[in-house]
């Protein structure tokens, strides 16, 4: 033991050895600094530590996907804005046009409009087109019956829905739903607030704000900032809602989802999301029933396709990123 200590002491006292060790340590430290400095270059950097990798959420259990894509209709150089399906005909609006397309892809009729149609709703008698700040009511021959401006500097109309003589207009810019009659007279408006000042109203961080009326005459409005779909009376009283915040397939994520919705005959919802683009079907209580199209079907970080539903439950998606109308049918 004594001998071992003596050796250590001798080593310690050996100045040359210690000097060399100190120099070696300093050389290693300098080398580390230089290697780090030279390695920190645009093509040599490692993974981005701030990146949130969502790849795992793009993978969807195939057992959940109950639909398959059966057809698509290219839109050429047209700039689309909104889609609706009524009586098995596709009504499409966009920059300066309204098209009526047969499900086989053939154009049935068309007429010009002044501006870009952002949303469209067809009924037995009318075709209602929402521009950014105006509502246009046409008959099926393309004759303009009525039109009016929605007066507010911040208005961005994103959706229209019809129930009997009532026309509901979603204004994303002001986070409100307006109710008109078909003559264009404003009946009421609401911001989704519950019981006066209590609770939040609609939270709409981007121009994604939808209003739909289902086959039972119920008015449903998306609240994208809350990841919710909310049911209101015609006068704007909240009756119920469901919400799902999750990165998983069961819920919605990001700032503003569901970005688009449509309703099936049985009252269930077709939802469409942006960012992590996916189309799903939920029942009326908000339970996920099936996946129509997983993220792999769409462009990465793409826009939310606008969705509409045919009579037999087929789902039409207006894919803005690929400029297509895509048809999904149950397998």
């Amino acid at each position, binding site marked *: 033991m004594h001998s071992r200590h003596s050796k250590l002491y001798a080593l310690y006292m050996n100045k040359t050895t*210690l*000097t060399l060790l*100190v120099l070696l340590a300093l050389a290693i*430290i300098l080398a580390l600094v230089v290697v780090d*400095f030279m390695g920190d270059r645009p093509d040599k950097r490692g993974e981005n530590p701030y990146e949130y990798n969502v790849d795992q959420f793009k993978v969807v259990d195939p057992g959940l996907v109950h639909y398959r894509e059966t057809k698509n209709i290219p839109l050429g150089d047209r700039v689309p804005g909104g889609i609706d399906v009524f009586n098995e005909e596709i009504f499409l609006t966009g920059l300066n046009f309204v098209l009526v397309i047969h499900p086989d892809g053939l154009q049935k009729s068309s007429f010009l409009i002044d501006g870009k149609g952002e949303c469209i709703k067809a009924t037995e008698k009318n075709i209602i087109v929402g521009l950014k700040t105006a509502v246009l009511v046409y008959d099926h021959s393309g004759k303009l019956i009525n039109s009016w401006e929605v007066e507010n500097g911040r208005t961005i109309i994103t959706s229209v829905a019809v129930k009997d003589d009532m026309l509901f207009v979603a204004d994303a810019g002001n986070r409100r739903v307006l109710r008109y009659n078909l003559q264009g007279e404003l009946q009421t408006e609401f911001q989704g607030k519950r019981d006066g000042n209590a609770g939040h109203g609609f939270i709409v961080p981007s121009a994604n704000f939808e209003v739909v009326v289902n086959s039972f005459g119920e008015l449903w409005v998306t609240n994208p900032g809350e990841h919710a779909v909310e049911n209101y009376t015609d006068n704007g009283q909240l009756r119920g809602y469901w919400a799902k*915040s999750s990165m998983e397939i069961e819920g919605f*994520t990001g700032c503003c989802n569901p970005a688009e919705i449509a309703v099936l005959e049985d009252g269930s919802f077709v939802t469409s999301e942006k960012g992590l683009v996916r189309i799903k079907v939920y029942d009326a209580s908000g339970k996920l029933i099936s996946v129509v199209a997983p993220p792999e079907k769409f462009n990465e970080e793409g826009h939310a396709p606008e969705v509409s539903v045919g009579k037999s439950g087929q789902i039409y998606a207006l894919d803005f990123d690929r400029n297509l109308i895509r048809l999904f049918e149950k397998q």
Partner: protein
Amino acid sequence: MKSISQKIVLLSFFLLIFVQANAQRFPKPEFESGYEQPSPTTPEPRSNALEYLDVLILLASLSLASWLVIKRRSRRGVLWLSIFTLLYFGFYREGCICSVGSIQNITLALFDPAYKVSITVLIFFLLPLVFALFFGRTFCAGACPLGAIQDILVFRPVSLPVWVRKTLGFIPYLYLGLAVLYAATGTDFIICRYDPFVGFFRMDGPYTMIIIGIALLLLALFFARPYCRVFCPYGVLLNWMSRFSKYHMTITPAECISCKLCEPSCPFDAIEIPVSEKVRTQKVLRQNLKRFSLYALLIPVWMFIGGYAVSSSHVLLSKAHQDVYLSELLIAHPELKSDTKNLDIKAFLESGKTFDELVANASLIRAKFKTGGWFLGGFLGLVIGIMIMNQFVFRTKTIYEPHKGDCFSCGRCMDYCPVVKLK
């Protein structure tokens, strides 16, 4: 009793209002992914009032350190002050704001009119230098957290041969020169990036820097204050200032009796010992004068060689600049322009600049490096020239004194002196 109940009700009411007022108006969506946002690498900015508090604490630390070393002659006091500094400027302020790094802010402000430094940064840069000009490097002794973290670990310091110390002593000049060049060209703040102890202060940092920090602290056990002696660029400026200090600490409180007791006391080899008379024969003096004159005349040559060498390396040096490297990369590999996975390329594409603008800017920066290379190389040549010339300078030394430039004013040597000052 009624009064107490009223107070409780009132308090509850205000608490409820407070909670309501502080509820988030726009609740964040609750994700279920388990994702944790990485914390930022630099501390949050402080309010002006708190920044001025930092300045006051620095001023107080410097004043106290100077008083403890020069008047009170208390090593223990300096030690406790350095521990406070380590805790406050190190762990509490997370190593930022820092006089060492402020060199770069000042440089960039001088070369880039769009960049402004706050008065706090300016004071943090100047104040230690002003104190060094009067009292020596008391900043290193008691007000620098980087020095403090190494100083408390000094265990069995070894003394390195003079030639090794002199050679290693060139590195801080090189580091300072590069730091100034990179800051002046807007390339990088390398002093901050390679601060080896900031990772400990922030309890977070790149693993390379943590390894380097640990290595330096282990080294500090046997080679005292390795960062201060071999790397610290601010130490160069303090060294220059301290050489002119009028009230620098002394080993002895009165007259040195050359007892040699203090000789091994300095872990930094900063004590100058008396020069033996026999070394300074007339013949040796004449030879040294000749050599001194020769090497003094050679200094411009060294400066030219240094300037030419560094300026010629401007292509290599400028690659550290993001725009230069990126433009070279995209010229060599045009296919990468569409690589949106690469964050740097993505950031460039989203900046709205054209490729031609990028290349033009890169050329401009490279030209700056070419010019700056002459200054950096000239400076390094001057340092080398003076270092060689100084080998032939003999100053009369009859007593044991701290080297004013190298001494950290830690006060260890004072405890070894047996001389007592008579009152």
